[in-house]
């Protein structure tokens, strides 16, 4: 069973990568780009009895240290 964690910097936290990507792309021909945030995409393949168990597990892994709650937020998604 596969799950994806989408991890992004919290909105109030400075997103240094997002800032650099946004300014660079918008000056190089993509001025339609208004905002950009760069985070992590983690695919976890877990062995679980059912989807809800798997989801729980994925969350537990995230909480164990795959994201930093002081500066990041995350969502889980079943793939």
């Amino acid at each position, binding site marked *: 069973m596969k799950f994806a964690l989408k991890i992004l910097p919290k909105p*109030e936290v*400075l997103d240094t990568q997002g800032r650099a990507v946004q300014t660079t792309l918008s000056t190089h021909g993509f001025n339609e780009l208004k905002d950009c945030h760069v985070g992590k995409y983690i695919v976890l393949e877990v062995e679980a009895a059912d989807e809800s168990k798997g989801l729980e597990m994925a969350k537990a892994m995230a909480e164990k240290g795959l994201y930093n709650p002081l500066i990041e937020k995350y969502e889980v998604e079943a793939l």
Partner: protein
Amino acid sequence: MNLEEKLKLYRINPKEYEKIKEILGREPEGVEWAVFSALWSEHCSYKSSKVHLKKLFSESERVLQSFGENAGIVDLGEEEKVAFKMESHNHPSFIEPYQGAATGVGGILRDIFTMGARPIALANYLCFGEPEAPRMKELVDGVVRGIGGYGNCVGVPNLSGQTNFHKSYNENILVNAMAVGLFTEGDPICLSQAQGVGNLVVYVGAKTGRDGVHGASMASESFDEDSESKRPTVQIGDPFYEKLLIESCLEVMKKDLVVAIQDMGAAGLTSSSFEMADKGSVGLTLHLDKVPLRDETMEPEEILLSESQERMLLICEPSRFDELKSVFEHWGLDAVSVGEVIEEPVIRLIWKNETLTEMSPKDVVDNAPQYERDYNPWKRKDNKNLKWASQDSENLEDLKKILSSHQGGTKEWIYRQYDQRVGASTARDCQSPIGVSALPSGRGLGIVLGCRPHIMRQDAWVGGMDSIAYPAIELAAKGFEALATTDCLNFGNPEKPEVMSEFVASLDGMNKACEAFVTPIISGNVSFYNETLDKGISPTPSTGLVGLRPDLKNMPESFFTKEGESLLVVQLGEGVSTGYWSEIKKGSGEINFDEDLKTLSLQTNKLMNAVLDLPVSSTRIVSSFGLAYTLAKMCFEKDLGVEVETDAPAFLEPLYQVVVSTSNEKAWMDWAGEQGLKVEKIGRVCQNKQWKWNETSLSLDELKDCYNGSWQKALPGL
């Protein structure tokens, strides 16, 4: 909110509140609370330490700028000068180790280039708890990654460091960073006095966010309690932005476009604007609504207190503003005029055409409280019985235990993660006891850190003295003359007399040594309240010294380079400590030090000259674990062994001795006779891979494995 709650939230005590009312002639209102809270904080006002810092030895012929500016400056002659300073980022690093340490590096670099100097070196002084303490592995990893992440990216080499482990740091780690900047011919020194009525106040760099806004300051009536997003936000450092800021700021300074400049550090815009105005005895208008914001919903109080990184405030003549702006634009940065210098000595805070308040910077800055905290006179411990003599209890096999311990083992894991050569001027890196940067003039600039917490625990006065003497001797052992000092005084709660007593005693020890060695303290920082649940850290007045050497030729190595060379020990002073090993083994230690510092300094100076004049291949100060350990470390690099015959103790710690290896023993012995110094031959360097001490012989390969395996053993997985 009643008054009591408010005072608590803004961390202002009742007496201070009375003083504020006296100053204002009324009760403080609105943002005034935040301004007093910030500027009267321990961090900004030095209220517990100022009376003692005033006593510090801080001048010499070479000192161009001492306390009072962003960093101190020393004249090196030949049109070269250096600015340097050290600062703590202990608490933020404990909360978020990567960003805490990274922003610590960013902050200290800004202090340096604000003065007009190009940063050329970094050094870091770290204290961690026991490896098995909760979160410790994560803290070590995060701090080291953070320092490397920022320093490497911004392009300033890390040349030196020191790392200590002790249980007193389990819940209060220390992260102190030092930066050194260079002025070459024609580089202006820029100061922070606002000047010139009608000049513009210009905001440069990153936009302001809610980063680091104090919990305390969040309490103003204008905020609703429930708002999650208004909680203090972790400050994020952007070394890439900092690099742009360095280049652009140095360029506008060189083009003479700035009247005054100041970085926005602790308490952000508030402290920078008030201090600039205060120093220049002028006033400023500040249109807070013109400050570039990351989040448009920010309120004036948050803008005033934000500690967003990579921002500067500068004063510029209106006619030069366009030129200034275009330099920043070239580097991709915004420069925005947010106010004006005015004659009336007040800070006028304006928000959408409405004056929020007018406050006199003199009243707030100069009238900040100062406390003479209680302390007791220091009683030096009398340990006259402790002698420099071989101990019955010594077991030479313990050398393996020392080398395999995290305290005595390699720190390579740390400095491999630091770029030590960017800038192409590194002559000695972190592997050497002192870092050396090659100056354009061809001379060498030595950088070294001091303060050994185990000595502090034995005696705070001697520990303070040692924070200067030990690094000064390390410099001398490579032929460098110590020129000046910066410090970072990390202590527990100053309201406790026992902590304050240690503070005063160690400062006195430092000061006496600075006078004797003529290494004035020209910049620094005090970090109190390193305490959790009533448990404070070992007193840790870390220091950074810079030294100068006339050239880079024949600089001694710190490891043996040639078989057959004689091993000599040069004695400077007669002090003795039971050393670090005794503390680890028995939990405590003793020290006997009763030296005439003037003599110690003279002897050190003689050693420096000898290193420059006499044939010498390697030198190394005998360190915390004693002679046996120091010799072993000198063997590793080239796999050369030693044969030692001596009746010296193996693990006691001398204050002080220096090991010298030379092909010309006679020259050194003659010198010792002439100069009246004690130099003893203890053995020779040999080809076979044995570490031999009298009858005991240990395999060098085994010792090396102990040393190199120590890190993984203590911190597996890192």
